[in-house]
């Protein structure tokens, strides 16, 4: 396997991805990501110099509209899906003391 994924890399990816992995999951993730990247390295065979990266197949432009409210008061409906809510707001754990 050409791509050796270090413990540090998996820790870092865990932070970026906001995932908490068990030791077992970390080992599996190192193996999976290594073999995926080996496979993806195939792209390096291709000469892409001078080729513009294509994010969309059609030209996409910003879509502007007037800043006018078109929906009604959906607060109750939105909050009905929240794991925890209070006084019309989402409740999250305390973030600072």
């Amino acid at each position, binding site marked *: 396997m050409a791509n050796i994924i270090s413990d540090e890399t998996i820790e870092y990816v865990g932070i970026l991805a906001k995932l908490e992995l068990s030791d077992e999951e970390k080992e599996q993730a190192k193996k999976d990501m290594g073999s995926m990247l080996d496979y993806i390295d195939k*792209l390096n065979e291709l000469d892409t110099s001078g080729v513009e990266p294509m994010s969309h197949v059609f030209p996409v432009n910003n879509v502007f509209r007037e800043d006018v409210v078109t929906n009604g008061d959906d607060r109750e409906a939105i909050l009905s899906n929240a794991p925890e809510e209070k006084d019309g707001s989402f409740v999250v754990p305390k973030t600072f003391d």
Partner: protein
Amino acid sequence: MSLMDIGAVELGKKISSGEVSAVDAAKDALAQIGKVEKDVNSYVTVLDEAAIIKRAEEVQQGIKDGIYSGPLAGVPVAIKDNMCTEGILTTCSSKILNNFKPMYTAEAVINLEKSGAVIIGKTNMDEFAMGSTTETSYYGPTHNPWKLDHVPGGSSGGSCAAVAANECSYALGSDTGGSIRQPSSFCGVTGIKPTYGTVSRYGLIAYGSSLDQIGPIAKNVSDCAAILETIASYDPKDSTSVKRDSYNFSEALTDDVKGMRIGIPKDYFGEGLDDEVKSAVLAAVDVLKDKGAVVEEFDLSLVEYAIPAYYVIASAEASSNLARFEGVKYGYRAEEYEGLHNMFKKTRSEGFGAEVKRRIMLGSFVLSSGYYDAYYLKALRTKALIKQAFDKAFEKYDVIIAPAAPTTAPAIGDSLSDPIKMYLGDIYTISVNLAGLPGISVPCGIDSKGLPIGIQMIGDCFNENKIIQTAYAYEQTREYVSCGLCR
């Protein structure tokens, strides 16, 4: 005889002429669900029977009053569980959305409702549409109605199985890398992935936003054309929605392929393709040749680069799109945690399944500082080259024909152990998403194990009508074959 035995448009005609009622149709769908759903598991949610019947009665009245005049009025439909439906559980087959009831409905589904659709339920899928087998669903795998110990394909496996098993008349699926065409092939039904931008993605829970498209799954090409006509629309709420010159797809339903230029990419018929699939697809090509199509082999090139480019792009977009699931606004929240960040992490780690985590991590990695150019931009450059290769091919051909998948449906449990092997199963479908093209999968045979084979027809952007015409002409030479559960 069940009303689910016939096609959606044919049923619509019977309903609008008063020969049968929308309630009869809904009851037949529910009766078949009662009979086979415990074995097939096509649905995550079947709506409450009373609610379905009430809606069917309303539609029946609406037809009488002239409110609903479209070909699908009163016809029972199943919706893939990644499309939001107001007040109806929408899970994406994930634990993290196990209690999510959207407060709005996806535009494609609204378009169906406006034309008198009767929704039966929400279909099972690979979690967040990441998979090719419908085995990664938190709600258990869907079984292939043709052979219950085989997968239906994926990720729209529930939708395709529901159509094949007569648990609805037709269904909506979504296709990011083959998720309509491949399971349609595995289940012996017909499915279209439209040109990117044709059907609004508003209310479709995003996986790879630059690749995702909603499309129809049904028993035949005419049904798919009618469904696509109904769901396709320009939608300002989707910034990638395209205003098309024409939304008339049914006009392409002519049994005539004289002079149709068909290209056969040699690179799609080489190593890795199952012999039985190959001969069934080539036999179908011969049928078209006999009907006057001009068939030629050519080298498409770049085929082996499509899957690696896809997994970089789709995973990158997924890692960003799935950042919204963190246990604050909706869905699952971990029970025990310490502080905000730990709550995010625990919620996501407990809420997502293994394949979803794998792709989020890969996506986070390829977008991270130091790797962005080497992986993400490289993949986008590869995508540009793949698009060019198709552009070149479509200068010479109207339609490109390929298998929908290299094999027929694998047995349940055979695919998940080796992710790369599973990803390779998408080799004939993935480039179409990268290039934004329309593709259709049509049944073209049954292998020696008794599993359906599908032929894929690919068109240039906005040329759905060429593939619909070719598929329709081919279909006229063949009867619809239903699975054993429907007989």
